[in-house]
């Protein structure tokens, strides 16, 4: 779920950019290290970024205006690690802002935080945890994709609530409000993305 261009006040836009910066900077360092050791990863990561972008243009059934790229980011974070995938996610968000007017430049920091960083770290953590606990693969995949989606949506609601606290209920009231409003699209979306990820992985394994 993208926050549109200019929606956050300047202080918040800057604040979230500052919050994202260390993750992206460390990710870029890891990326540079990786490319030095393994030049082939350059083209692979480029293609994965393209894939993540295009995946968000696959419309899921019955959900309008959806955007499915935590799925792509989750995929990538299992393959390349969450740090590098945070960077790839940030690049994808940049292209979405510039080529599709989806998201924005001033909200790039906030969106990167909720989608690229939280998305890839949570998907990766759930994947690892499921693996460690010995959960069935399909269940792990479903949880990783859908929970990281839900986390993104919760963080976005929090970001909006911090910027626009409720006159009566304050920040907590605003969180409830935004969670409620966007639940209509985001909860079904998270579920269908979980299912989609399971189906995709099974197709790929059978290949």
């Amino acid at each position: 779920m993208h926050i549109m261009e200019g929606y956050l006040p300047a202080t918040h836009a800057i604040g979230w950019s500052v919050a994202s910066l260390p993750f992206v900077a460390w990710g870029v360092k890891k990326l540079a290290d990786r490319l030095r050791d393994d030049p082939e990863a350059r083209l692979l990561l480029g293609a994965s970024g393209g894939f993540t972008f295009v995946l968000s243009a696959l419309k899921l059934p019955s959900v309008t205006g959806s955007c499915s790229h935590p799925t792509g980011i989750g995929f990538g974070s299992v393959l390349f690690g969450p740090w590098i995938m945070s960077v790839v996610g940030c690049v994808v968000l940049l292209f979405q802002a510039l080529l599709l007017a989806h998201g924005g430049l001033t909200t790039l920091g906030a969106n990167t935080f909720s989608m690229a960083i939280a998305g890839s770290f949570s998907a990766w953590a759930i994947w690892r945890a499921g693996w460690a606990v010995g959960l069935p693969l399909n269940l792990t995949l479903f949880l990783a994709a859908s929970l990281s989606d839900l986390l993104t949506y919760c963080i976005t609601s929090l970001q909006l609530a911090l910027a626009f606290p409720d006159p009566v209920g304050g920040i907590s009231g605003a969180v409830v409000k935004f969670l409620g409003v966007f639940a209509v699209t985001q909860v079904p979306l998270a579920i269908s993305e979980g299912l989609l990820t399971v189906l995709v992985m099974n197709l790929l394994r059978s290949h």
Partner: protein
Amino acid sequence: MPWASGGAGGRRDGTMLRAIDACAHTNRWHRHAGPVALFCAGLMACVLAAPPLVAGPLVWAVASVAAVVGARVPARLFFGSMLVPLGFLVTSALALCVTVGFEDGGLVFGLSAAGAMTALRAGLRAAGALAVTLCFACTVPTAGWMALLRRARVPEALLDLVMLVYRTLFVLDEARLGLMRALDNRMGFANARLALRSTARAAAALFLRSLQRAARLERGLAARGYVDRLPVLPPQAAASRGGWVLAVAVPVLVGAAAFVLAGALGA
């Protein structure tokens, strides 16, 4: 045709993907990345810093005129691209007009005039900022802003990634279109369950294609001497002293006007 897109699955995205990018490469300002970027940064600072009730509409108007009249961006493309973000704007503005409180352990809802005012400010600011970003997106080609990032010493690894993502996303988008059409032609989207399965097929196929693309590009570039660097020339930029002057002057004037007007109107 190279910009062919649309059809099953993401008509809107596919269309805009090609249209904004094509415009960025063909508009009157496509060789003036430096001044245009500065101009847009200045306008963006105005719309974020000045009182939004005045600065929002003012910056929206200036950015729109700059793009449509100055750079000759097709009006239909420019204003059409604003429709999608409007959906987000309306939904969250409605949320801002409603108040939610906790009383006696339960949720209490109400309508709020203060909330409506906040929504109005946020909406006008967002509209102004959106026009600025679109002005930038429609006038500065990717190679143009990448050259600016390179001069700003953004790490090489990140720029390589940006360049490769830019190239692959168009190649894979073409593949997405073909796959979705082929699935659609065999009734793959006849109902929601089939649609989910078909989307999964397309996604899995795209994933395999992206791996394959990387492997083939690796071999193709090796034939051109690729080992571990992807150096390219910066794009040719046109000299534009006047452009730099305008890029500074216009945002300064807009900012000043916004503060003065806002003071006069007491907004």
